[in-house]
């Protein structure tokens, strides 16, 4: 079950919104595809991202995956705990394994994203 108040992208990022702060991570589906995560590359505080710009990368033993920004904004926090415990992404992808917090530049960016029920339908479609 995906958190019902989160937004999702087709690239399997999620966004949790609190005021004008967007917390961003990758979905449970994405972490299962990646396998055991061993490294995370995080962006610097203060960096600005447009929609779909690469925020960083997540590396598992078998694959490298880019994380794309679902919304535009400025990085106000990066989850440094992921540097010492990258496996958190596999263990708690929707909670403790948040990747960055952005101060949103344009909240209307959220309109282009899927809510949980649509994301779940989207995943079912991928399975065929």
């Amino acid at each position, binding site marked *: 079950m995906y958190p019902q108040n989160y937004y999702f992208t087709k690239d399997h990022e999620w966004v949790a919104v609190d005021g004008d702060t967007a917390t961003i991570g990758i979905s449970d589906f994405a972490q*299962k595809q990646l*396998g*055991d995560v*061993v*490294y995370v590359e995080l962006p610097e505080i203060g960096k600005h991202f447009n929609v779909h710009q690469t925020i960083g*990368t997540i*590396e*598992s*033993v*078998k694959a*490298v995956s880019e994380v794309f920004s679902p919304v535009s904004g400025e990085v106000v926090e990066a989850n440094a705990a992921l540097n010492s415990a990258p496996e958190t992404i*596999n263990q708690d992808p929707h909670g403790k394994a948040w990747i960055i917090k952005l101060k949103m530049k344009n909240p209307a960016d959220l309109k282009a994203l899927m809510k949980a029920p649509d994301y779940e339908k989207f995943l079912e479609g991928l399975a065929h």
Partner: protein
Amino acid sequence: MKQTRFNAHHRRLGARMIEFCGWDMPVEYKGLIEEHLACRQAAGLFDVSHMGEIHVTGKDALAFVQHISPNDAARLSPGMIQYTGLLTSKGTYVDDMLVYCIHPEFYLLVVNAANTDKDFAYVVSQKGRFAVQLDNASDRYSQLALQGRQAIPVLQPLTDVPLAPMHSFTFVFGQVAGKECLVSRTGYTGEDGFEIYSLDPDPGILWDAILEKGAPLGLQPVGLGARDTLRLEAKLPLYGNDIDDTTTPLECDFAWIVKFKKGDFLGRDVLVRQKEQGLTRKLVGFELLDKGIARPHYPVYVDGAPAGQVSSGTFSPLFRKSIGLVYLPIAKTAVGTEFEIGIRDKKVKAAVVPTPFYKRNY
């Protein structure tokens, strides 16, 4: 896609399946790292039925094997196995393989899944006037690999074959879980272990019985993902990555499979010349000195200049760092030599290290 005879067993265990060389295979069950460590600490069970098996039979079986392989098959008596290559006339690799001596007129060649059809076509093209029959028996065989320090305690209760006295690289015929099998003391992980071959059309009990016996001892099923990280830690080459039709056994640090004195074989004259002139490059092991993972085909820089690509590279679950294999110019192959690997937009420092990365301590 082709399926092995254990396909339903993997799916029942919830394995993540992928397509590998036309086969529907398990890449992981519980997770690559957990499976890798289970094999190193207890035991792992692998479905390797996708591998290829070629029968070479007839009056000239030995002479034919001697022609296509640089190693000396005359040293094999029935029940013995040797690692070797299938070489082109240029001394480069068509594939690497194991040769099993069943009896003096019957040799079993075990080859990579990726190359089975290519290898069979190649040996057939080399038949010439040798009095041999060549049979691609791959689809009739199922094969499991049981690897790890608990391999004997897991397998012995299931078989009449006395396992402990078996030397490495030998095999016997016997019963496993009531099925007639060929059991060899071989493997691709750097652990002790056995490979179990069956021609039974219904070999499922082998998988179930071994898993059931082994679970209390820590045995886990292991997929193709961990198979690759295990073999790389043990510095075992992979065709397509570390060896191919542009590399010779001398360059990839397997000179010992080339027995020049045994007589003529495909590629011998090229290898003699290469040995006399000296190598220009050699396959060595490396580890990354900074954070990151060096993967196959990532660019390599020596003294700042481009110098080829990583051939094998991964994150080692045991050592928790990035390790791999690379061909470097011969002057740069000493342990400790530093070079750089391009990882996305950065050049990351790496150093040549001794191999194998992992050697078992029992």
